[in-house]
């Protein structure tokens, strides 16, 4: 099903979606765009490259309350925090980020236990993917092409959107997408010319140039295993690393979290909060032992986790080449360059 709407009327579309559920889309903030709930249809803004923090925040919020309790009361009386899930529309997700959800799904479904929070949010959300503007060259930091993701790749989206002049073409990719497009009365039908444009745009998208190297998951996984114990390589790569958490927090495929108790006097809440393998105390045990005390060990963990361990465990690279870690790194560490160097090492 291919529909279209004039970009001038995009606010009507926002209003219609807001009627049917929660609308999340990139909203301009001081430092750039970020996904946030749209409160006023006028807020919807298609003029962005990509968001600072990835849309994983929608399914894996930085803070997720599990249970509220009072320490003086019996454990059995603790109150699990209800997940008030509402139908959600995640609007304007870039192809690389849409792909990241599929990668995260593998992890959150693994070893026979489905993460209930992730899954319930995922089930309630319709993803409106949006192609990168092919007239604008990709930013220097991006390398999604390396991971086999096109600039107009509909994979992972329920509805995929492409701009055509003054119009926005919207194509349903999944049954959920079909359903929601059918319910949006203000959309016009796509003409055969639109259909052709859409197909060609997607094809053209796969040619859209980002940094690109030939990368076979199995080969890079093996390569990283081989050089894992090469302290020299990793020390050189991590010489500048500050060991802060930016790269992992903005990353669409980083999922590590901490479970912690926040208690004041006798009341408290147990929640999960994002954590980062780059933090010193990430692996610090109560005994005082810490297997990763050096910066290079932590950077190595991050890179190997994405490009080697994840491949070994789940068969896919846990990176989509969105370039956020590189873009926001205060000292310009670039995971693409590390992988490139690793291949040469």
């Amino acid at each position, binding site marked *: 099903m291919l529909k279209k709407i004039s970009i001038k009327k995009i606010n009507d579309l926002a209003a219609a979606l807001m009627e049917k559920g929660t609308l999340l889309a990139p909203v301009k903030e001081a430092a750039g765009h970020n996904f946030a709930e749209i409160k006023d249809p006028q807020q919807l803004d298609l003029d962005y490259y990509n968001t600072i923090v990835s849309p994983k925040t929608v399914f894996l919020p930085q803070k997720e309350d599990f249970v509220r309790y009072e320490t003086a009361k019996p*454990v059995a009386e603790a109150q699990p925090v209800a997940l008030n899930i509402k139908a959600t529309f995640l609007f304007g997700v870039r192809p690389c980020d849409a792909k990241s959800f599929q990668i995260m799904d593998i992890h959150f479904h693994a070893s026979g236990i489905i993460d209930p929070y992730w899954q319930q949010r995922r089930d309630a959300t319709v993803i409106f993917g949006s192609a990168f503007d092919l007239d604008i060259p990709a930013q220097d930091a991006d390398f999604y092409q390396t991971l086999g993701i096109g600039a107009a790749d509909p994979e992972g989206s329920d509805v995929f959107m492409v701009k055509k002049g003054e119009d926005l073409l919207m194509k349903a990719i999944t049954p959920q997408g079909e359903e929601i497009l059918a319910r949006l009365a203000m959309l016009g039908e796509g003409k055969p010319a639109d259909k052709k444009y859409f197909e060609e745009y997607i094809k053209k998208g796969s040619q859209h140039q980002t940094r690109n190297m030939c990368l076979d998951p199995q080969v890079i996984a093996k390569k990283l295993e081989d050089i894992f114990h090469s302290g020299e390589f990793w020390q050189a790569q991590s010489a500048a690393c500050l060991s802060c958490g930016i790269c992992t927090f903005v990353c669409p495929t980083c999922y590590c979290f901490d479970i912690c108790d926040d208690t004041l006097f006798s009341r408290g809440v147990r929640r*999960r909060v994002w954590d980062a393998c780059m933090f010193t105390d990430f692996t610090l045990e109560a005994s005082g032992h810490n297997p990763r005390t050096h910066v290079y060990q932590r950077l190595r963990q991050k890179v190997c986790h994405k490009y080697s361990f994840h491949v070994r465990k789940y068969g896919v690279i846990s990176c989509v080449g969105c370039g956020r870690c590189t873009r926001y790194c205060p000292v310009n560490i670039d995971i693409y360059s590390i992988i490139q160097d690793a291949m040469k090492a």
Partner: protein
Amino acid sequence: MINKNPYIPIPMKVIKIIDEVDTRDIKTFRLSFLNKEDEASFKYLPGQFAELSIYGKGESPIGIASSPTEKGYIEFTVMRMGTVVPGTVTSALHDLDEGAQIGIRGPLGNSWPIEFLEKKNVVVVGGGFAFTTLRSLVNYILHEDNRKRFGEITVIYGARNPGLLLYKNELAAWQKRSDIKTIITVDKGDESWQGREGFVPAVCKEIAPSPQNAVTVICGPPVMIRFTLPVFFELGFSKENILTSLEMRMKCGIGKCGRCNVGYKYVCSDGPVFSLADLEELLRDFATYK
């Protein structure tokens, strides 16, 4: 899975607290289920662990010390941690009284590979405080329903001094039994110590268990493991037949929080029990042996 939401602990009641050692920093907690349905769904095997949870303090992954053959309760032996970073949860556990409620999530992780051990001779080697899941295994094997499924059982257990041996009554009972060979050793005895003195690796060398159709299950402090492994290599045990249990900092216990990986495996969901052959494959940030 014992609960619809794997992150929310089930309530349990502390029915008995046993002070295990002279230094009073290791206690065994016997817990009973508050809800019958939780008890029915909590099916575990020796070697598994659970997250003990105290609201307001946090959670701690602790190996289950009781055997599944013991009905009506489960036991955990917990050491009060806190040399560098105070062990918030273990301290709080130690401050509990009988009758208190705590939460647990589990059982988690794999177990000692019971099927693999069947029909084989089992050499159990333990050191100090790491004897908990080994005790579970030994009691499981010794249970009358199970004993016939296994070959000879040899237990070699050492501690720094007699006061630091765990489960003293049970050890004495094992020593009286004919269907298990129990060797207890201490690094240094005191005036009343009648038993053996010597380090675990040396004792293993002396006892020299036959590698014939045998598996060894080793758990102990890193230094003990480092010196014991060569002894078993020399005796002719293959890497597939040497099993151990790892520990790492854990949070979720179900392979989601991404913290406890050794190489591409998560200790919590793929482990904690690994054979030496498995471990060789994994990329470690540090090496406790070699």
